[in-house]
């Protein structure tokens, strides 16, 4: 029997990394929100690796933070190790990566949700989406509860018709032994959504006391922890190291000898898995020449003896998992507490979504996270936040938030999803971001905090702090540009001391800073008027000046890019009416329904003359409507 529970502005289906951000965003923006989880112990569950961040992903986390999301703050509270990656490369590709206490992460996110005004949390499986006409109307739960809502955000992760595979054993399941959501897929299909099937996997977890760390290489955190969130001033915490070991030829023999029992090779697994996160059996098969592969042993938490065996993701039978794990140096006596498994799940083909993450077919229905064919906590959280913000903006009848490829990694991520679709679980990569020199992790606040403040997710206090930082950066750049050093014997003596060329004509401090052998700290001796500045301000000043040429070039490219993004295509365009389109171009345009000429040009199968034809058509329309 069905029963009415209540009326909400927003219902969020799923409380993983996407769902939490979505629910927090809508409730913080003042909308009455309900969020569902199949199990409340699994809120913000890190079902796979115990870490957040890395190249591209770390940028996402910073962007989420600048827009007023929760992920970075929750990371700062619960990290057990922090590392800055790519420090030997330039500033544009540096990235933070945190190791986390999984359970603490989950519990503190749950607590944040619990403390949030306007937000109800319910342990229930959502089985049906209610639709009235072309508008979403609410959801129905397994127990028959009807929750009316103006907007519904689907953030179901890998739960949709989840199926776990370990060797020849397979069963219907969500991640980590949780219940799957078997009914919602049918509801989505009956609403006309096209679903696809992906696969992902996870390695075994082993007991800490069964590991011989003396045979491994220690992987400590950085000396100084740089926090993820702009709201965190500093983190003083004892860090817990990870450990590095390697597979060997014995491991590989065990694997190859048992390939006939490997679901990936027997045809048991049909979903497509991610290339960047292959199972160990695939690594051994595809890279036969490699006699060993890295294995990182990562703690899953403080009051927790489980260790994550990074690099050993597998769906081989349990007995093979034991044998191959114990063949690895330091793991000779390893006790597996949880076996590795593969999980297959339904995703919704994301080209059915608008760049706001709202469904094209049903108004008010949003999708975010792994259900859109992505993988990764960070990718999920980013989409959850954007879906939440847009659901709220729509209810408030405000303009939607669409970040472009030149604004943020979030923009790249969503544009790729809704324009190109996915053919494997999608993750961000720096090489996907054309303007990555501008989309640095260090300047996410400069890029996005205005937007976060405008939508109401950044507090006045935070925003004021940000504006102060911004002014300091601008003033210091200006000061360095206008402060001239004259070529006196004394200054040239100092320059020689710095092992850099002397000057013949007056030179600004900014010009000196451009020299690769100099930095802000070094030119201090030439800079009498310098006042102390926070190091994140100095960092911005240094990057802006030292890489000015490259940055300017990317800004010029962005201006070109934006011209095409700003040529909007009306939503009601009838592509059958457009004379001269190629057959394939017409079909693709009808399917993707791009919002701009720029987006149209990124659809594969739409060629340059289709774009010309489209522009002529739009011009014809415009003139007709004018006359």
């Amino acid at each position, binding site marked *: 029997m069905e029963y009415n529970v209540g009326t909400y502005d927003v219902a969020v289906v799923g409380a993983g990394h996407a769902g939490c951000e979505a629910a927090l965003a809508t409730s913080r923006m003042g909308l009455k929100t309900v969020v569902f989880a199949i199990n409340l112990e699994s809120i913000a569950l890190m079902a796979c690796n115990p870490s957040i961040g890395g*190249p591209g992903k770390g940028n996402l986390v910073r962007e989420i933070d600048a827009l007023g999301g929760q992920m970075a703050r929750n990371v700062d509270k619960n990290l057990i190790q922090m590392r800055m990656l790519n420090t030997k490369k*330039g500033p544009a*590709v540096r990235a933070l990566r945190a190791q986390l206490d999984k359970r603490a992460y989950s519990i503190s996110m749950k607590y944040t949700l619990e403390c949030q005004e306007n937000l109800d949390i319910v342990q229930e499986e959502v089985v049906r989406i209610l639709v009235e006409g072309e508008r979403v109307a609410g959801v129905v739960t397994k127990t028959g509860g009807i929750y009316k809502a103006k907007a519904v955000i689907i953030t179901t992760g890998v739960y949709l018709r989840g199926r776990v595979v370990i060797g020849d054993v397979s069963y219907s399941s969500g991640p980590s032994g949780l219940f799957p959501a078997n009914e919602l897929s049918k509801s989505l299909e009956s609403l006309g959504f096209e679903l696809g099937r992906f696969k992902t996997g996870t390695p075994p977890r082993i007991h800490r006391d069964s590991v011989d760390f003396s045979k491994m290489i220690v992987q400590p955190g950085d000396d100084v922890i740089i926090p993820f969130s702009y709201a965190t001033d500093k983190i003083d915490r004892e860090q817990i190291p990870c450990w590095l070991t390697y597979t060997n030829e014995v491991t590989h023999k065990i694997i190859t000898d048992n390939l006939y029992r490997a679901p990936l090779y027997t045809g048991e697994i049909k979903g497509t898995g991610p290339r960047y996160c292959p199972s160990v059996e695939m690594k051994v098969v595809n890279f036969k020449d490699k006699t060993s592969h890295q294995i990182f042993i990562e703690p899953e938490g403080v009051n927790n003896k489980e260790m994550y065996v990074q690099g050993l993701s597998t769906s081989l039978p349990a007995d093979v998992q034991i044998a191959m794990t114990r063949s690895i140096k330091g793991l000779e006596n390893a006790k597996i507490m949880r076996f590795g498994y593969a999980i297959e799940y339904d995703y919704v083909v994301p080209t059915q979504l608008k760049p706001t993450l709202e469904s094209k077919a049903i108004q008010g229905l949003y999708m975010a996270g792994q259900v859109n064919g992505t993988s990764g906590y960070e990718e999920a959280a980013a989409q959850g936040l954007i879906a939440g913000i847009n659901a709220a903006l729509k209810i408030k009848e405000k303009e939607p938030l669409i970040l472009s490829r030149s604004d943020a990694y979030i923009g790249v991520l969503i544009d790729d999803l809704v324009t190109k679709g996915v053919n494997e679980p999608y993750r961000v990569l*720096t090489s996907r971001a054309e303007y990555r020199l501008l989309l640095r992790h260090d300047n996410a606040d400069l890029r996005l905090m205005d937007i976060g403040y405008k939508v109401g997710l950044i507090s006045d206090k935070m925003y004021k702090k940000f504006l102060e930082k911004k002014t300091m950066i601008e003033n210091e750049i200006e000061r360095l540009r206008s402060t001239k050093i004259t070529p006196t014997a004394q200054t040239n003596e100092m320059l020689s001391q710095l092992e850099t060329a002397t000057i013949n004509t007056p030179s600004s401090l900014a010009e000196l800073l451009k020299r690769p052998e100099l930095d802000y700290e070094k030119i201090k001796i030439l800079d009498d008027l310098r006042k102390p500045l926070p190091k994140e301000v100095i960092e911005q000043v240094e990057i802006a000046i030292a*890489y000015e040429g490259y940055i300017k070039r990317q800004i010029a490219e962005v201006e070109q890019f934006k011209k*095409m993004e700003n040529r909007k295509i009306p939503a009601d365009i009838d592509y059958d009416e457009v004379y001269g389109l190629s057959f394939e171009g017409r079909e693709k345009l009808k399917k993707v329904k791009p919002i701009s000429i720029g987006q149209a040009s990124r659809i594969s199968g739409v060629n340059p003359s289709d774009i010309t034809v489209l522009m*002529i*058509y739009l011009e014809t329309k415009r003139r007709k409507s004018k006359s």
Partner: protein
Amino acid sequence: MKIVESSDTIAAISTAIGEGGIGIVRISGPKSFEIAKEIFKPRQKNIKEFESRKLYLGNIVDFNDEIVDEVLIAFFKSPHTYTREDMVEINCHGGLAAQKRILRLVLDSGARLAEPGEFTKRAFLNGRIDLSQAEAVIDIIRAKTDKALSLANRQLSGGLSNKINAIRHRLLDVLAHIAANIDFPEDDIPEASTDYIAKEVGDVKEAVGDLLKRISAGRVIREGLATLILGNTNVGKSSLLNALLDEERAIVTDIPGTTRDIIEEYIDINGIPIKIIDTAGIRETADEVERIGIQRAIKYLEEAELVLLLIDISRELTQDDINLIKLIKDKTTIVVINKVDLPAKIDEEDVKRMIPAERIVKISALKQEGIQDLKNAIYEVITAKIGGIGDEGLIGAGERQRQAIEAAYNFLDRALLAIKSFVPIEMVELDIRDAWQKLGEITGDTVTEDIISTIFEKFCIGK
């Protein structure tokens, strides 16, 4: 896919190639006037502002102020133009070669080569063409695009696409390696060292440079090696020309220009066309023989890729001879010592001391002696110029393709410079990627996904 922005300035040769003697180079867009003013020197001095829709006579000059061609130019102020943008039309007389040189000057001054049908597209988008013609416009643009595409494909069918694919493949490996290092810093992937990247990029740059050389050699083969016969009065220029023509029975094409009487004649040496710019065709008046002769010679020298300097051995060297010798100092020259059938009044060694001559050939044009030697010498010069590239090594490419390759070359050059200046690798990568994309414009293929796929093919990712 690259979409072309409509707010920049475009240019193209707008007379169909091979149709009609006069060519028009058309420019459209906001920078049209600026560009035209930079390269056009009006005959009438003290012109402050060019009036719209009025023809001006003058010269197109290059960046060294050398005259390229005499032209009639017209400025058209927007919006009363075909494209409704500022437009300039340059009517040039000097045949296809001159049109191409003018076009290249315009492009080097900041215009972009127009896409097929782009003038028409702009005319329509800017409201110049009636709505009822929208479909016709689309047909024109589609047809032009398809034609250009099939033309491009034909041009591409030879060695060019193979070479470009090989080069792109190598760049792709470098890009994927850098990307893998950036995106998977903790994976077990060898570090792409700056030495490795510098070497790869350097090699590729060399290959691209070689490609450019082959393309310019290909152009020589197609368009003929521009050869100038130079010499003072009565040294036997006409006789030499006739001797070459008689022997070769070459096709003679007279292209009488409207402002200057230049005669271009083609002879064929071992299958390679030689375009002889014959200054003998200049009508010389008795009074001003030397002066005019030298002045005009200066004009043609610029264009010439080979100079045949004719010296009459039966007369002593004059001041005029010496002036000419100074002029051709930096050119590829064959010194042709004529009239060897007469008593010599010049010591050959004196000539050798004065000019950087690759070769000296002695002939008697009148008696048709030594003509084969001269022919051999010309052939050797050509082979040297083409840089030992055999027939198979020659590559044909359109202007658009050549431009893209040249742009790629410049990006690679910049990447190398950046590596030397310790610029971080992710910024160097921008230049490498731009080079890769430029080359991809030729083969019609520039997908980022290629880089990502290569990462996963080459490197074992998944720490």
